């Protein structure tokens, strides 16, 4: 187990380098960011040159990249164009997005898995058909439609919630945005759980458990659900990264100043440091989440062993 973890951690290094290099190249292809800094007029050449030196944009790309990598190891992610260190942006953005992600994941786990179990156990019944139809609707409607609709109805028309989230972004305020963010994944979790449960219901160990006379609840939760969770856990694990990086739409709609918002600003203003910094951290989140998922397999199904 220990060796497996170490091997996996070592594998992260090339992925990390490759990912940052790619992003670095992509942002640089977009052209000279200084040109857009002076608004609808040309920056005067002297100031532009000075700014370029300040942000290290006058050096060749490979040198910029190496300096960047070197700085990262000392925890220096550079400075965004508005003069704020990127680490400061991260400090304000990540807690908010993490809270939003937690809310979304909780929705996926609680509602998604519950619905999945219910429908999996009652295949073909009206509940099953109803939920399936519902998930189909949720999957096919884009997030921004759900988001804007909920904002308009709950926020403006009925006044149940505030249409926007305050800078503090407490858990309470994030419930609706979290639900919107989770909605599509939630539908997938439901469907995955349903299929998995329905499949495993006929397996030997469930029959044995039932034959032993175990209570129905125990059979469902300890035997059936635990073994059916492997694909679901894989999905939710990869979804953590996707939710954090992909919250741009939801964050924009509900005015949440999280990672998505900072990334959006970074891209629009072509702030290389901001974009590369945030994406780097997101890549790490992806990698760690995937590692955790792999380790969870062994917990869920003791037949899986790591050498």
């Amino acid at each position: 187990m220990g060796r497996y973890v170490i091997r996996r951690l070592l594998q992260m290094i090339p992925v990390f380098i490759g990912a940052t290099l790619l992003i670095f190249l992509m942002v640089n292809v977009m052209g000279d960011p200084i040109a857009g800094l002076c608004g609808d007029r040309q920056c005067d050449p002297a100031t532009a040159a000075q700014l370029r030196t300040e942000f290290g944009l006058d050096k060749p790309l490979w040198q910029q990249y190496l300096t960047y990598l070197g700085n990262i190891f000392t925890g220096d992610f550079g400075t965004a164009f508005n003069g704020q260190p990127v680490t400061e942006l991260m400090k304000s953005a990540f807690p908010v997005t993490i809270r939003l992600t937690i809310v979304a994941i909780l929705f996926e786990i609680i509602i998604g898995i519950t619905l999945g179990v219910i429908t999996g156990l009652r295949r073909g019944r009206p509940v099953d058909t109803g939920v399936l139809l519902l998930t189909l609707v949720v999957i096919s409607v884009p997030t921004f439609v759900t988001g804007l609709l909920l904002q308009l109805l709950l926020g403006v028309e009925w006044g149940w919630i505030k249409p926007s989230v305050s800078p503090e972004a407490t858990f309470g305020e994030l419930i609706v945005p979290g639900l919107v963010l989770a909605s599509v994944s939630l539908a997938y979790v439901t469907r995955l759980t349903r299929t998995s449960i329905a499949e495993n219901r006929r397996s030997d160990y469930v029959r044995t458990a039932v034959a032993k006379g175990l209570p129905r609840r125990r059979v469902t939760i300890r035997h059936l659900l635990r073994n059916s969770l492997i694909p679901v856990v894989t999905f939710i694990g990869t979804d953590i990264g996707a939710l954090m990086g992909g919250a741009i739409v939801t964050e924009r709609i509900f005015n949440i100043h999280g990672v998505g918002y900072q990334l959006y600003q970074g891209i629009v203003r072509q702030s290389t440091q901001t974009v590369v910094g945030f994406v780097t951290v997101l890549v790490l989140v992806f990698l760690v989440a995937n590692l955790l998922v792999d380790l969870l397999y062994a917990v869920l199904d003791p037949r899986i062993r790591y050498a």
Partner: protein
Amino acid sequence: MRGATHARWAACAVVVALAATACGGGGSDSGGGDGSGTVSSSWGDPQNPLEPANTNEVQGGKVLDMIFRGLKRYNAKTGAAEDMLADTIETTDSQNFTITIKSGWKFSNGETVTAQSFVDAWNYGASLKNNQKNAYFFGYIDGYDKVHPESGSQSADTLSGLKVTGTNTFTVKLNQKFSTFPDTLGYAAYSPLPKAFFDDHAAWVQKPVGNGPYTISSYTKGSQMSLVKWDDYSGDDKAKNGGVDLKVYTDNNTAYNDLLAGNLDLVDDVPAAQLKNAKSDLSGRYINTPAGIIQTLAFPFYDKKWNTSGAKKVRQGLSMAINRQQITDTIFQKTRTPASDWTSPVLGEKGGFQKGLCGDSCDYNPSQAKKLVQEGGGLPGGQVKISYNADTGSHKEWVDAVCNSINNALGNNKACVGNPIGTFADFRNQIGQHKMPGPFRAGWQMDYPLIQNFLQPLYYTNASSNDGQWTNKDFDNLVNQANAETDTGKAVKLFQQAEGVVRDNMAAIPLWYQNGSAGYSDKVSNVALNQFSVPVYNEITVN
């Protein structure tokens, strides 16, 4: 049925949670009509650090307008430059100015505003090593080329044209005659700065200190700035409310929804999609007033094809092929006004705005348009490509409409196409490298309400924003004469003559004047936008 109970439980949890957030909300405070109430307003994240000479966009400008007062201030209604801190600004030759400031003004940290506060601030703003994006504002002052050379390093730290001659007086020597120079001094870049700015710059930028009617009580970058009324403010335009909370919105649609839901008092940028409903949604609390912004189509005069003798007729033809009225009515919901000159109505007739100066060339006339384009030798390269940045400002819609209009008029549906460029930075980049394949979007937001500001930076040979590299000796001469003219009325006349040269050559096609739009809640009144489409915050009262 156990399943059903589960589902019901989950649904209940959601409802409870929703109710909880609703209870937790509703924090919009109003202190009543005694002037202690706080106004909450939408805001965008400023692009640059907040320093007077480094702020070149509206969002940062809003804050500077609240916490700073300069020598002059532009009247929110008439646009006239009126003395604020300036007691007198005297000149005999339009080149050497003696400026006396009123005594008794203070910064909110207790420091006195002196002539030195101005001179230090201007020297800082001009100095190349400080990377100030508005440094060019000081370009008229003698010694600028030493402090801010076009390349290489600076050979002086201070402008030789600035001299402090007393606690409250200083002199300015310009490197050319510039009669309307005093009227430019209302721009935020000319604000005075306290010693605290130079002593601890990092701390100052975290929480700027100025001499205006408000002070900053807290500033969380990227999310909110709270400003409170400064009771010891020296000017007579004291704040009529207790303070202003500027809230950063990621999307103006969200801000608008917050306004409708009663969580926000003021939105100064009504989203385009809502313009249709804004009037009825807000039952009259919707403002749509002209701002000092004009949109034009500029041409790449560095491209030989556009610089032929016949191309002038082609440009005029294109101008006549654009149905401005229809586009402003349908696409912009009347938040733009068809342009008939190259300035802006906010200048007023006295300031140099002349309705209809463009004449027939700006009237929609498809048959004449077709004729002119043919006479001029046809479209260069057989097709015009209108370049714009596709990332912000929904430019695609109107560019497509302009192209449609041109195509219809010329009877050729390939005559005009839009040429979207991914990001604003790349758009600016290609303009800077002179790579434009045809006409391109050129918006101009004035720095100060002067006709000079609508002409000189845009059309003077090698001027800072002359992106199309248009050059004309007559125009340059007239501008020089106007700048040398001490009588303002005569100067304006000369600028209008210069504008006539722009018209005769159709140096750029004027499209429309842009309005500022705002909406406000029933909790506030006296809301107005100034010529820069920034709300006049200190005048707002809380009901």
